[in-house]
Each structure stands twice: as C-alpha cells, then as structure tokens.
C-alpha cells in the first residue's frame, strides 16, 4: 500500500439556515497518496471549497462538520483540539488560496511573514530562519531574494505573490498541500508557470497535492486522479485519463462538451450546454441530484439515493444507475 498522506471518510458539512438545513457536502470519501495530485473539480456552489475547509477544520462557525475518519500521514487528526490543529496547519498541511493579496498580511514584509511562520512551527534562530526563507524564495524562482524579503506584498505582482505564498507553504516541508484555485486570479502565462512550479516542487519534496479548481484545462494537465463534484457529492472519480478520455457520468460528459477546445470544436458552431440549474440543497433530497438536468433520467433515478459505484473495480467510480456501456454510448445533445 502506498504512503497515504490524507484519508477522509464520510465527510458531511451541514449549514443550518433559517429556511432549513443546507446539506453542502454529503458523505464524501477522498484520499491522497504521496507524490500524487488529486483534483477536485466542479462548478461554483458544488461544495469543493467547503470540503477543503472542512479538512483543515477552518469551516465557518455555524457549519457542522461530520466525519468518520480523518488521517494525515497515518495519524488520526479527527479529535485534535484547535491548538493541535493550528500546529498542523502551515506545518504538516500547507495551504495555498486563490487570491494571494488577501492571504498575505499587507502590513508586514514578506520576510517578516515567512520568518514568523518558521518561528511558529520550528525552534530556529532568526538568522537561520532568514536564510531558509531566502533559499525558499530562490527555489520558487524569485530573483533578488534578499531584496524581496524586505518588500511588502503590494510591491509584488500577482504571479510573484503567489510564488511567495508557495514558498511560505513549503518552508515547513508539508506532507500535504491543499491549493484552492491557486491560479484563477492569474494570467494564462503566469498560470502555466505557477502550475509547472507546483508540479516540480511536488516531485522534489514528494508531497501530496490536493488541488481544487473549476478549470478543466488545469485539471487535465496536472491531475493524477480527479474527483468531479456536483451539488455536494462526488459524481465521478477516476484517473485523469479515465475522466477525460472516457467520462461516464452524464454531468461529466456534459461538462466536457461545454468547453471550447482549439482545433477540436468548430468555430461558430454551438457548444454543448447543460440545461437547468443546480438544485437547492436545503432540506432532504432523495435520488440523483442531477436528474432534473439529465436526458437519461427516469423515475428510478428519483426514487432512491444512488451510491458511487465502481462495478469493474477499475478505480473509475460513478454515481448513476445506468451501466458504463450505456453511458459511454450516450450522446447528450
């Protein structure tokens, strides 16, 4: 069995609202192995960010997290106290968020913030910390690192800030990095550079990477495994090859037809689309959550909950009552 960095079993997140309980994440199981990249992909509101926050125990106060198992590098952190969790966050578990400007403190220099991270988690002298911070900045491709340590976040460009965030995350050599839309705020050119950097560093440090994004292009290029989320559930998971070359679930298949691909989709011809809207997740929900938008839906789909199944044991699991053969042949208009 490979080294498992993260194991999450039966995660649910409920948010009590005035109108009822919002079941934002429903019975989710994921794992990340060493050196592997798990991409969680889905549209806004599908619960992908809440999943990552739940794993880091950073959910908003009123959200209720239920979880059967939460292991980080073989140790259960399910019952950790707030103090123990904050020892782990930024240390064994690194985090990279979407907008680096909001996750860096504008009132302190880059150097200050990096050294503070080190002092928080390591017993280390000031000079050593500064030296390590400088080396880490060089590692993420920042030139004139000494000078950068004295600069404030607003003096750096978006790409540089995200590099600083990555350097800061790597300082304590985490076992797992959770990155929530790390490149969404960046230009395409910088996006490619940041992803390349993440991938290289991941190989070098042999970390597990959990990447949350809505961009299927990013997923295809960086993922080892993919989990597609829809309305709080994983509707399909498998290797990147399986998901992109042979998608099964009608939602995944629909998504693939929505994106224009240079050289493949003909200009001016209509792109595929998924009719309808994501259902409200307030209150109890029975049956397939995608049924109202699905061409293949029948009464059976709406009668009982459908489990994520992997009939052939080929690691590609999907949440649909139809069998793989029918799904693979289906053409959603």
């Amino acid at each position: 069995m490979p080294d498992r960095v993260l194991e999450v079993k039966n995660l649910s997140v409920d948010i009590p609202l005035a109108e009822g309980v919002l079941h934002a994440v429903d019975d989710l199981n994921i794992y990340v192995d060493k050196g592997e990249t798990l991409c969680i992909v889905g549209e806004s509101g599908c619960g992908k960010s809440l999943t990552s926050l739940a794993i880091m125990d950073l959910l908003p106060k009123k959200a209720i997290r239920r979880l059967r198992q939460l292991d980080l590098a073989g140790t259960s952190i399910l019952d950790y106290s707030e103090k123990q969790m904050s020892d782990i966050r930024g240390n064994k578990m690194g985090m990279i968020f979407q907008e680096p400007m909001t996750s860096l403190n504008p009132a302190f220099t880059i150097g200050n913030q990096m050294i503070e991270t080190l002092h928080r988690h390591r017993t280390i002298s000031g000079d050593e910390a500064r030296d390590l911070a400088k080396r880490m900045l060089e590692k993420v491709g920042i030139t004139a690192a000494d000078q950068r340590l004295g600069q404030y976040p607003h003096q750096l460009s978006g790409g540089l800030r995200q590099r600083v965030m990555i350097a800061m995350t790597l300082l304590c050599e985490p076992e797992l990095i959770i990155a929530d839309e790390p490149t969404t705020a960046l230009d395409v050119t910088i996006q490619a550079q940041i992803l390349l950097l993440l991938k290289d560093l991941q190989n070098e440090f042999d970390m597990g990477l959990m990447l949350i994004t809505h961009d299927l292009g990013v997923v295809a290029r960086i993922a080892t495994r993919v989990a597609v989320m829809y309305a709080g559930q994983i509707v399909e998971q498998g290797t990147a090859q399986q998901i992109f070359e042979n998608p099964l679930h009608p939602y995944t298949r629909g998504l693939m037809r929505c994106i224009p691909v240079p050289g493949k989709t003909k200009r001016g011809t209509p792109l595929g689309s998924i009719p309808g809207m994501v259902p409200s997740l307030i209150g109890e929900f029975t049956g397939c959550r995608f049924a109202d938008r699905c061409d293949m839906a029948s009464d059976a789909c709406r009668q009982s909950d459908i489990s994520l199944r992997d009939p052939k044991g080929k690691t590609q699991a999907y949440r649909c009552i139809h069998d793989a053969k029918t799904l693979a042949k289906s053409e959603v208009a």
Partner: protein
Amino acid sequence: MAELMIDAKDVTRNFSISRGMFRGKQQLKAVNGVNLTVARGEVLALVGESGCGKTTLAKMLLGLLPQSSGTVELCGKPINDVPRLELARTVQPIFQDPYSSLNPRKTIGSIIALPMKVQGVADPDSMQRRVEETMELVGLPPRLRNAFPNQLSGGQRQRVAIARALVNRPQIVVCDEPTSALDVSVQSQILNLLNDLRDELNLTYIIISHNLAVVEHIATRVAVMYLGRIVEVADTDKLFNDPQHPYTRALLNSVLTPDPNLGIPNNQLGASYPNPIDPPTGCSFHPRCANAMPHCSGIAPVGKAQKGHYVECHLYED
C-alpha cells in the same frame, strides 16, 4: 471590402501617475500608438496579459475615455465629434461581472429599459414591448421582468446585461471578459447566445478575453497586445496555426487544453511583466523573449503587414 466600423489610427492614452508630494508626475503609456480597424460583422478579440492596455483601448473605442493623441473614427466620423446619445446608440458594452454591473435595487425590467429612457423613449407601452422582445431574444422568460438581480443566477444576470446592451439595437458591442465570472456550463450558453445574436442582428463584436480557447471559438480576427502596443493581428485561424510574434507563441503555448496526455507547458517567459511606467527600451518584449537578438534592446521594431497578418518584431523585418 466590408464597411469599416472602427478605424483607430496611432491612438495613445497616457495617465499621469503621482510619484509623491513635491515630485513631479510621471507618464504611464497605457495605450501607446495603436492602429486597429474593425469591419462590420467582424468579431475582433483583444488578448494579452493584465495591464497590457486592453481595457483602456476598449474604453476609448466606447468613447468613455478621450484619447491622448491619435484618432478613432466610428463609421467614418471622428468619435470625439459623435454626440453622446448617438454614440450610446451605436456602441454598447457588456462587462465581466454580472454581479456588480447590475443595480441591485432595480428590477430586471427597469434595468433593461434604462438605455431607452436615456434615449428619450417616453411611451411606456412601446418601452415594455421592447423590453419583453429583448428579454426573449436573449433567452430570459418575460415573467422575470419584476424580479431583482439577486433572484437570478449568474448566467441569467449576464443575459440581463446582454439584453440591456442590445435594447437600443447597437451596431457594435464591446464585451470585456463576458464569460470569465461564469461557470463552464453557463459560459458555453452565453457564448452560443453571443454567436446567435451576431447572426440575427448583424452585430460587430470587440471581445476582450484572456481565455484563448474562448477567443478561438468566437473571434474572426485576433489582436495580441503587449504593454500598450498591438504586436500581432491576424485572422483567427492564421494566428492559431501560424503565430509569428514570440509573445503570441508563448501565449498560445500557455493555453491548457483539457488533454491529460500533455504535461504543463513551459513558456519560458520569466516571471515579471515589465513595469509600464518604466518600459524596456527598444522592443518592449525583449527581456522576456526567447528569440531576442542584440539590437532588440536598442531599436523598436517596425510593424509589417502581409496579407492581413500584421506583426511587430525584428525577426520579420527585411
């Protein structure tokens, strides 16, 4: 040759940037000598990294921002001489974020009707009829007329923004990142809608986008901008199949198509976009260019057009 809708010649826009108290102002050349034509029925895409001047250029084409020098002609008339109302009838914008471009306190109906009121349409019946027609045109059920923006989904809001732009039947629509704030499945619906509307109403689009896959799908011609200058213009097929400028090549190389068998591209661009207040000498792209030659840092390249393919690079000079 098709009728020219927009003809921009040597357009420049400077902004004065304060360097602090008692220290003079500095000029930032956001758009620096741009020549651009847009013919009727064309879909011209402006692409480039953030800060390259795409939006500033679009604002000047909309008449929202006066140019510092150069001329912009709209249907043969200098844009500065076109009366404000006529300009608004001809050119309309669609913005990126439908969550901030719609007034949250107005109903959908009154948001769409506002441009007509501005133009002086007083008859409430004809106004209502036009609102409903336009809502139908963009695929909004007319019953949403009395709803407020917060009751609508992102895709519906963007449809409202499109309806508002089209209600006076403009000839040119400037779309600034029309789908960037939307989900993939909604993005495809909006792109399909823009394509259909163009056929139906004979519209001319200027589309600003950083998503090159979207540009490839919808545009007929693409202009690549870098640091206030247009460095390459060509028909979409030509630009995507045979990009000439090293910057265009790097940009196209960075597009992540959803193919799991390809890795992450290395565009060799280096991390830093130059500071526009203090642009590099010579060709402004030379510090990041993989093909830079010694004279690139000293002499600015002169643009060269061949069969409608314009490129500004020393590699292609005689």
